[in-house]
């Protein structure tokens, strides 16, 4: 990774964008936000699920009648009878029973062969392309971050779970906020007063010092409003929220707990339109079958649980879940019962307002490009649809003029 792409990627992997020194609302204003100005009813909400490491799309959505599938990867292919068949040629990984149920309810759009021109097989470069939404040049903002830029300033508009903000939510002028997963212990009393003094802006601050002060201040702003909500139970469940540790830059392992928090906050009416959660560990170079199935099981179970929880709320119909990874994996298995980095993969979009079914062409196993699956749908077409339909913003400005879309959203 050269210094430019890496630097930019990490600049993006930031608590806030460089130019984020915008005036903030006062402590009390934000503390009251979740209670005083709940998200208007029927406002669509996006939940982006990032799978870090490169999920093997070919063992997620499986062409179970294609003999090339079995001959290309004899060690790690699934026998047809074990699979969850979706139609006469494609089936889901056996671990994805929850998603299969949602599919049967026509709530799952599967966009096949999603990627971008000239696939990059570096985790970092490829994830940067997916998250910035720009596969052509290295830029310093995420596609959702640029959407945040177009919105009124609000630290609660887009929230990422875990202590490190992904590039996805970094804009040029504003950014999303990070929400810790470790149970919120907000300084009170004397310490709170001290913190308030210490986080005042100072004219002698360098940019990074100003940001350090600002995030300290943000801590109060976000926590104050969210903490009473966190004390409530998960919707549709008697359990209280478990206390869990913060995540890391490579994705979190506790997807279901992240989604529990999101479900609760959506239920409470948090004025948040974009949520970002993640799961890591998909880099299955060796002994893939069990590892990937376990991870896909987590993804599938967590999402179906999440959708079930939402049913007991008034927001059930508003939520759209997007699931993606930085690349698929090589068609031919390696000698380690695993796969190396590949190119395209399926993207899942799930929700009540989604028109269930397949979109885009299934890449042919007979017509590989450098041993990899062809890209049949550009990720920008998926993003453009989400920007227009879910986030109600013109996609062209955010996606550098991109116009194509995928018709997976119901007209209603």
């Amino acid at each position, binding site marked *: *990774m*050269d*210094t430019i792409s*890496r*630097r930019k990627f*990490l*600049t993006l*992997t*930031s*608590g*806030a964008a*460089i130019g984020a020194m915008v005036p903030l609302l006062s402590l009390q204003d934000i503390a009251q936000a979740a209670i005083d100005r709940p998200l208007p009813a029927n406002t669509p909400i996006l939940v982006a699920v990032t799978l870090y490491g490169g999920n093997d799309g070919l063992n997620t959505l499986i062409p179970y009648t294609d003999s090339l599938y079995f001959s290309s990867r004899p060690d790690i292919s699934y026998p047809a009878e074990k699979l969850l068949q979706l139609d006469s040629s494609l089936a889901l990984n056996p671990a994805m029973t929850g998603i299969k149920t949602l599919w049967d309810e026509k709530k799952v759009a599967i966009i096949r062969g999603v990627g971008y021109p000239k696939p990059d*097989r*570096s*985790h*970092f*470069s490829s994830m940067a392309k997916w998250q910035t939404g720009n596969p052509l040049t290295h830029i310093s903002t995420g596609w959702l971050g640029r959407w945040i830029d177009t919105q009124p300033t609000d630290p609660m508009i887009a929230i990422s779970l*875990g202590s*490190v903000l992904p590039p996805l939510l970094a804009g040029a002028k504003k950014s999303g*906020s*990070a*929400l*810790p997963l470790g149970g919120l*212990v907000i*300084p009170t009393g004397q*310490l709170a007063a*001290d*913190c308030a*003094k*210490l986080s*005042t*802006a*100072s004219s*002698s*601050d*360098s*940019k*990074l*010092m100003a*940001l*350090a002060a600002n*995030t300290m201040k*943000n*801590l109060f702003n*976000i*926590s104050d409003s969210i903490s009473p909500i966190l004390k409530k139970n998960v919707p549709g469940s008697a359990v209280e929220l478990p206390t869990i*540790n*913060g*995540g*890391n*830059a490579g994705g979190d392992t506790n997807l279901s707990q992240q989604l529990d928090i999101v479900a609760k906050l959506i239920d409470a009416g948090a004025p948040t339109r974009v949520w970002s959660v993640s799961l890591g560990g998909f880099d299955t*170079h*060796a002994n893939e079958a069990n590892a990937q199935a376990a991870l896909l099981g987590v993804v599938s179970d967590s999402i179906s649980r999440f959708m079930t929880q939402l049913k007991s709320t008034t927001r059930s119909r508003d939520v759209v879940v997007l699931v993606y990874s930085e690349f698929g994996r090589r068609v031919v298995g*390696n*000698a*380690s019962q*695993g796969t*190396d*980095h590949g190119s395209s993969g399926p993207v899942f979009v799930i929700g009540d307002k989604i028109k269930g079914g397949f979109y885009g062409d299934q890449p042919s196993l007979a017509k590989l490009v*450098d041993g990899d699956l062809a890209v049949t749908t550009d990720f920008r077409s998926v993003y453009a649809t989400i920007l227009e339909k879910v986030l109600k913003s013109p996609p062209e400005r955010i996606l550098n003029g991109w116009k194509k879309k995928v018709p997976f959203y119901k007209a209603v």
Partner: protein
Amino acid sequence: MDTNRLVTARLFQRFGFGPKPGEFSAALQAGNTATRTSLLTVPSFDNGAQRVAEPALTDLGKRPEPNDPQQKIFGAQMREQNKALTVWWLDRMALSDHALTERMTWFWHGHWATAIDKLNFALPMYMQNQTLRKHALGNFRDQSLAMINDGALQIWLDGQENTVRAPNENLGRELMELFILGVNRYTETDVKELARALTGYQVTRSNGTVTFNSRRYDPNPKTILGKTIAYDATSATNHLVDQTACQLFISERLWYRFISSRNPLPKQSGIQSAFGQRSISAAVSALADFEYLSDTRYSQVKSPVEWFISSCRALSITPSQLTNPNNLLNYLNKLSQVPFSPPNVGGWPTDEAWLSSASAQFRFAFAQWFIKQGDISPVSNLARKDRVAAIADWLGVAELSDRTTTALQGADGDPKRLTLLALCSPEFIVSA
């Protein structure tokens, strides 16, 4: 900003882990030329480092089968050894009199980022750490050749799975992308060819012993970066280190971690030319140039470990003696940085990534916990009115803003609270 103080502060912060009590004011007295020389010259003997006993690590052997009752004991031993390894290194960082060697070992750990999560065993990670320390300031060619034969790295990147029958590209790709050349300075064909050159390695996971099995090695010619011979791991690694891209890449990485991740390496910098023969110490010496050290654009956020260790040095804390180490590792984990557990093969992020609201919260809780166990006599022994004025020199901070000075003055009656605010102030979190 007083340039003299800025340079002194950066020398301590970037090429060490911050000053111990009294060191900063002594350095100001001695002047920056002398301070620079003393910080960059590794002494033949380090009293502080000698006080840290090596961790008690043993070869745990093969993991028992899942249903074996021994499994539980084995798991407990594994966790104990991992913990011992981590606090051992934190102790070395905190106690070494001369911190440059540990600082460079820390840099290389983030460069050849290997995580214990996949290896499970502490012993191979310890051996890798010793290799990185041995070559921390030596020649990058020797370091690369040692690392390609490192058991932990081989396991981490599936090197033992890479055979003539079916190459596994993981190690080959990262060797070019992240370790020696930098992304896009090679082709996809080069990755495949390099993977073939690296075939034949086998590793004993529990102790990191690397063996070469010629039956798994691909002896045929490979074309790597335009040259075709029957490369093996040694000749291929040498070939990569020979590239001018290597000279540029390592200079970029040093610049990125020691000077600025936000501003690119200047064109035709003295760092690249100093690295011409792949001498790491020459490159580091070129990095510690007063021109860079006095440029106010090049501020950096201390990573959580750097922030914690500089606090330890100021407060004379021995990390392993904190009650108890599980809490310590839990705090570091919440701040997303535990030695031997980088998040991925790219190493840890920088700067803004460490400044989320979440980390601000954890930093306060962490500091409150360890301050109770530290020596704050450098301020508590002073008369109340003199305490705030002593903070900057004690902690090695270039300059405190009026904002922070006011906040500290409000706490000068309570030395613990005063220390807490100082350690969590933007001026201590960020290396100006």
